[in-house]
């Protein structure tokens, strides 16, 4: 079991209600409501973008308009997103500072209340803090800069280092991958662009924090992480938003590139309030003997659709998705993984655990693709669902296409329920209903959480405790 002293607990503590606050809006840059070519131009102009990026955006906008909503397989709730009622760019005209002292007061206070500066001091190698559309703060330890590590936002990455980023930008996830990746490609702003040079092993995690402050707003960060030969990095993202009356949209695109022998670990602990549509496309490209590992913890949101993937392009590449999804009353977590084997002796592992509370619904969608001409590929898929109440709901849609017989695959799925008698037993020992449910849920995800870096396992446990305490009347 991971244990932490109280200072660490304090430092990583983020709870749902702590996130539930917002500051008055005073944006100097506001693209207004609705989406058209003008909106996209507005964003390009503010950022002073190169022509190729402008074209990339405008093309993406057309693709977005031309693609239907994927409601033939996904939740009908997508139809409730009114694209004309959303604002696509909101910023205070700030450029990200390298010192918290220079961050505007209300923004700084926001991140202080979320404990970000403190975490940075305690255990992070670099932090980027995004407030609505743009990063307000971005800093990376000097020692890393000296080694050539780049950690900037998307605007800066594309403007200052096109020779590094342009090559892979939009290549792992093409614009037309799905309607929401097209949307992101048209209006993206913020996010992290990271480059780690060959052989550099970044010891402490880099962290980004995404904060939505404004109502009727869409956050579209764009992240591209390139880790060169033999290099390693752990990246962590956290997200919160206040509880607004109306729907808010978060639609990110995250591309990872791990060159030969490189390792990337990407950890998400998302804690959205329950009016956020969270529609995110995440995919990594692993070259020879490289490893990409997604650890994806989805708590909160109204509807999350997210299926992190790894394309194993080089021999002996490895891909892993560890996913934990908790859907509370009225929420739908539609999550899973995509593993595309494209070279011999590639290995993938998927472990997905979902918890449904009350009327919460969890869906697992998995795709494992191993073509006939390859040799010695392995996949292991495990998906377990836990239902807390009788009216909770879970579905599994695994699609495993394995051609040829020179591969090894394993698939296990289970659905279990926290029985009334189990809760009765725990309450008889003096635990409240909330405590009994928290303990059961933590027990269910325990074997996965043990694999997380300690700070994040503590944070996740706290989030689960808050959720479960809050779910009993």
């Amino acid at each position, binding site marked *: 079991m991971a244990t932490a002293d109280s200072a660490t607990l304090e430092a990583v503590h983020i709870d749902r209600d702590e996130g539930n606050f917002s500051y008055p809006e005073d944006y100097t840059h506001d693209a207004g409501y609705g989406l058209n070519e003008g909106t996209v131009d507005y964003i390009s102009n503010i950022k002073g973008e190169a022509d190729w990026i402008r074209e990339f955006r405008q093309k993406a906008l057309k693709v977005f308009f031309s693609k239907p909503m994927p409601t033939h397989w996904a939740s009908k709730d997508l139809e409730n997103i009114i694209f004309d009622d959303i604002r696509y760019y909101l910023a205070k005209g700030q450029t990200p500072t390298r010192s918290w002292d220079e961050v505007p007061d209300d923004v700084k206070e926001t991140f202080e209340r979320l404990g970000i500066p403190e975490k940075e001091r305690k255990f992070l190698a670099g932090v980027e803090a995004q407030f609505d559309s743009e990063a307000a703060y971005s800093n990376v330890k000097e020692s890393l800069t000296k080694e050539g590590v780049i950690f900037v936002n998307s605007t800066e990455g594309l403007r200052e280092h096109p020779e590094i980023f342009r090559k892979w930008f939009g290549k792992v996830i093409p614009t037309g991958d799905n309607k929401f990746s097209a949307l992101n490609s048209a209006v993206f702003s913020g996010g992290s662009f990271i480059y780690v040079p060959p052989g550099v092993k970044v010891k402490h995690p880099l962290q980004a924090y995404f904060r939505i402050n404004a109502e009727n707003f869409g956050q579209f960060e764009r992240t591209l992480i390139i880790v060169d030969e033999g290099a390693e990095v752990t990246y962590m993202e956290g997200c919160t938003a206040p509880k607004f009356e109306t729907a808010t949209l978060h639609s990110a695109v995250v591309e990872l590139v791990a060159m030969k022998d490189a390792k990337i670990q990407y950890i998400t602990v998302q804690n959205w309030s329950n009016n956020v549509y969270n529609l995110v496309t995440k995919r990594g490209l692993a070259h020879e003997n490289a490893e990409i590992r997604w650890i994806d913890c989805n708590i909160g949101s109204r509807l999350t659709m997210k299926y992190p993937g790894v394309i194993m392009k080089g021999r002996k590449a490895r891909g892993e998705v560890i996913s934990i999804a908790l859907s509370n009353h009225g929420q739908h977590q539609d999550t899973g993984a995509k593993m595309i084997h494209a070279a011999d002796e590639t290995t993938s592992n998927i472990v997905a655990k979902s918890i449904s509370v009350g009327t919460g619904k969890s869906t697992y969608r998995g795709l494992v693709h191993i073509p006939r001409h390859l040799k010695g590929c392995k996949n292991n898929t495990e998906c377990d669902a836990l239902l807390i109440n009788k009216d909770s709901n879970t579905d599994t849609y695994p699609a495993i296409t394995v051609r040829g017989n020179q591969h090894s695959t394993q698939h296990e799925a289970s659905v279990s329920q926290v029985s009334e*008698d189990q809760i*009765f037993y725990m309450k*008889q020992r*003096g635990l409240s209903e909330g405590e009994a449910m928290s303990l*059961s849920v933590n*027990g269910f995800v325990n074997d996965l959480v043990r694999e997380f870096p300690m700070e994040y396992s503590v944070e996740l446990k706290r989030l689960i405790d808050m959720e479960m305490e809050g779910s009993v009347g």
Partner: protein
Amino acid sequence: MSQSLKIDNLHATVDGNEILKGLTLEIPKGQVHAIMGPNGSGKSTLAKVMAGHEDYVVTDGTVLLDDINLLELEIDERSRAGFFLAFQYPHEIPGVSNANFLRAARQARLPKGEEVDAVAFYKEMYLKMDELGMDRKFTGRSVNEGFSGGEKKRNEILQMMMLEPTYAVLDETDSGLDIDALRIVAAGVNAMRSPERGFLVITHYQRLLDYIVPDVVHVLHDGRIVKSGGKELALELEEKGYDWITEELLPA
């Protein structure tokens, strides 16, 4: 202030069937009472009604734990008020280690802001596990998961020893125990006997009562206590069965 677990005229139904039909029984602090009775007579029902299981509806009667009206409390409040039930069929809690579970139960008894002292907690738990002849590896295993019948029962007693209730009901803790385990568990219970604590031991076998010598033995039949006596009553029951009692009850 009264110092007893006092059950008075208790009526309870499950799914509309009346199982307890006016049960009256008082266990003063410092005493051990035993309940015997045929299968289906309502022994476990009594235990679960006292613990607050939601399947059972109390239609009449009271249960007082010292001066506390037990039936008005939530399940977990009853536990924290000092009521403990060692289950006939203990439940499994997948993924939650025995140590974490016990620690959470102890934590639930502390005022807000106070934390269990981990070092002292483990020391105490190991000591009590030694007394019960439980291997250390049980601390890391999920609560009752894959435990043998006897291991589960021992684990119930470990929990009782760690939570130190004022009144404990042991529902057939002896069934499933081998002879040595029976002796060890009985020694554990005997070590907890004190003027500050009362026990209600449900059993089918007089053998247990050789080790945990009761002050009073009751016979439960069809939802009521139909006979009470000293420990010799258990011997008599073992010899003659229950029929003679039920026959005694028939109107002449």
